[in-house]
Each structure stands twice: as C-alpha cells, then as structure tokens.
C-alpha cells in the first residue's frame, strides 16, 4: 500500500542512545520543576508583599512567561542574554528557559489556589502567635500546593515536552536532540521520531501515574 519501506531495525538499534537522551530530558524537566516551584513561591510572596517594586517584578515575570512562546524564551536565554556577554551552555539555557516559563505559570496557579483558601486560615494561624511568614509556610503554602497539584502535574508534562525546544540553542544530549542527530546521520526521519514519540508518551504517562501515587501519599486529608 505504501510506497515507503520502513526500516525499524535501524531506528531500534539506536534505542540505547535515545534512552540516554530520555534521561537527560527527565533531568532537565525535573530540575526546572523543582526550581520553578521554589521561584513561583517566591514570586507569589512578592505579589503578596504589598511592595510595588517586588510585585511589579513578579507580575512582569508572570506576564512575559505566559504571553510569549516558550521557544522564544529559550532562544532569549541563549542568544538574547549573550548580547550582554553572559554565556550559558545549551543545557543551562534550556533549563533557564523552561524554569522561567514554569515559574511564571505556576505563580499564576498559586495565585488562583490562594483565592480558594479562606483568609480565616491565615488569621487562625496569626491568632495562635505564628508570624506572617510562619503562617504562610505552615498553613497557607501546604494547602496552596495541594490545590495546585494537578496544574503542577500538567506543568511537569509541559516541561518534558518543552525540552524538545533545546535543539534551537544547540542542545544535542536530550531525547529530541539525540533523535535529530541520528536523523542527520541516517535520514530515517519517520522511524526515529516515531520511536522518540513513543518514549515521550511513556515518560508523560509515568509522570502522571507517579503524580497520582504521590498525591495519594502526600494528601491524606
């Protein structure tokens, strides 16, 4: 039926290299999530701080992250900032780009989550003598993280998918980069990218499953 002969063996022979790439992809995505969550908490605090400057910084960050393409952000992190003489390796640029994006989106999620937490919660904490920061840290934040858990899982999947944009800044060790390199050597485009697609799909499923298990362990209330 098709006028095309599949050569799956060629692609499958490269599977070990692609799996190595998958590991790098996971590393970048996980790191960008961990740092992204921490930054998003800080941005959220900035926005709550009441300081014009701090909340201005946080708001600009969030809006730029949410209103420009991720590809643009990653390209900027490499070639844009280099115009100021700051050089990041492809790996770092990719990590920074995705982290910037993650932090922006998560901060916005956190803001939504905060609205769902009655302010009597913080008040009850303050009434017990907890400081403002303690009330946030021990009472508000855990609830905020729980409410945003599903959006966080989605963001994690996004982070995985975004690693594919690393090739634009010279990344060649992640799953997409490895696949593209192999494609340059062999030109078996369809087979190689089909294998990569399956790996990406499995990774996202594992993450979603893991998140569900994690949620069950973490949120018993």
């Amino acid at each position: 039926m098709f006028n095309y002969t599949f050569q799956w063996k060629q692609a499958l022979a490269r599977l070990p290299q692609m799996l190595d790439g998958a590991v790098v992809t996971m590393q970048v995505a996980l790191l960008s999530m961990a740092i992204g969550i921490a930054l998003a908490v800080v941005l959220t605090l900035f926005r709550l701080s009441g300081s014009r400057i701090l909340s201005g910084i946080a708001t600009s960050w969030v809006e730029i992250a949410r209103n420009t393409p991720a590809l643009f952000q990653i390209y900027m992190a490499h070639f844009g900032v280099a115009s100021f003489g700051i050089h990041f390796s492809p790996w770092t640029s990719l990590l920074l780009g995705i982290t910037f994006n993650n932090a922006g989106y998560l901060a916005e999620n956190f803001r939504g989550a905060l609205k769902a937490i009655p302010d009597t919660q913080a008040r009850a904490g303050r009434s017990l003598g907890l400081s403002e920061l303690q009330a946030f840290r021990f009472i508000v934040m855990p609830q905020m993280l729980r409410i945003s858990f599903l959006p966080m899982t989605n963001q994690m999947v996004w982070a995985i998918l975004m690693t594919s944009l690393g090739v634009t800044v010279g990344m060649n060790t992640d799953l997409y980069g490895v696949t593209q390199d192999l494609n340059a050597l062999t030109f078996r485009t369809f087979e190689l990218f089909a294998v990569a697609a399956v790996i990406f799909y499995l990774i996202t499923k594992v993450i979603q499953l893991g998140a569900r298990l994690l949620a069950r362990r973490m949120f018993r209330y």
Partner: protein
Amino acid sequence: ADKLDDIIASGKLRCAVVLDFPPMGSRDANNQPIGFDVDYCNDLAAALGVQAEIVETTFPERIPALVSGQVDIGVASTSDTLERAKTVGFSIPYYAFENAVVANDKVEMADWEGMKGKTVGATAGTYEAIWLEGQVKEWGEGQFRPYQNQADVFLALSQGQLDATVSTVEVAEANVKSGNFPGIRIVDKAPMVPDYVALIALRSEHGLIDYLNLFINQQVRTGRYAELYAKWVGEGEPADLTIKGVYR
C-alpha cells in the same frame, strides 16, 4: 509517469535550498533568496523548461522536506554519505567544499588541533558537524554543540559562546568578510576529505537522477560551473569534481 514527467507536466521545479549558508544560499536586502544553489536551481529549471520555486529549509529539515514530497529535489549542499544513500538518491557531486577552522579572536588557537578541549560547534546535520562531533568524542575532552542553522553557529561564535567552528571555506570567508560577525578569524584548514556535495532526489527516481547527473556534467562542460563559482565564491579555480583512480 515518473517524477521527471511530473515536474515537466506541472511546469514547476521545487528545490529545497538552505538560505543561511552564504555564498551557496542567502537572502538579499529585500529578503529574496540568492546564491550559488539558487542560481543552480534556476539553471536546472530552465533546462527542464519549467518555473523554479525555492523552498527554504534548514539543514536538519531538508531530507524530510524531500521525502515528504514538499520539494522535488534538494540543491542544498548535501554530503553524499553512504549512510544517507540508504534513504535518499544522490546525483554525482555538483560541488566540493574544503573546510576551515574559524575561531573567536579571544581564543588562542594556532591550528586545527587547537580545538581540542575547547567548546566547538557546527550546523546540525552537516558533514562538518558529523566530523567535528566525531573528533570531540575521539579527543575525549571539550564540548560539541550543534545549532539549527549556520547563522546561529556564527552568532554563537561571535558572541563568544563557541570558541571555534568548522565550516566550509566559502562560508567562512564570506562571513569573515561581511563584517556581520565581528571578532572571528580563520585559523586553519580542517584536515577532512573534501566534502563532495550532491543534488538529492527520491531514491527510486532513477530517471530524475540520471537527468541531474547529465545536467551537472553539462554545467561543468559549458563553463557555467566556473561562471557561478566566479560570481558567488570569487577568484580561483572551482573544485575538481572528478576523483582519480576510480570509475564515475
């Protein structure tokens, strides 16, 4: 009817050309495609008696563009490796590149071996990228970065993100001369087998490939090859496309 008939019937020849690869392909001030490969495609279309259509691709994307039927042939400086020939059909070489090592001014480097241990890069999917990545692996030190296009490579080199790159002598000279990329210099020739590049078409289109072979032959015979070389590359002799001691 085979592809050759289709092209003639449709009155249109679609060529994949890489347009950030001066002097082979680039854009003029009006952002129109120009360059050796663009002229080459136009010549071919004229010979076929059809209209030429230039489709810009990146290096990694030129084969998918061909194989997915978005272009009829590739005039895109494609190196004729045996690995690739398993997938696409190559004509006889229509050009041959020698490669040069280009370095950032701030980096000390006397010859090509100075690249050892440095951060080097090239355009993903090219002959020189494959060679350079192999070298870096062999040296066991330093770092290799493939960028999506030639411009990004030189941008990174000029910004100091890369210490050195390997590119065709033509591209290297054009980029150094243009002044678009301040702070770079040509260091040395790269010790590679000349990079013979061929036109590409679908592997099964023998009629078309035969036509391409004859066309290339005619270009050399009629002196058009030398003319285009003079127009786009400059003085000197264009590379010899024959190989001693072997048929074809």
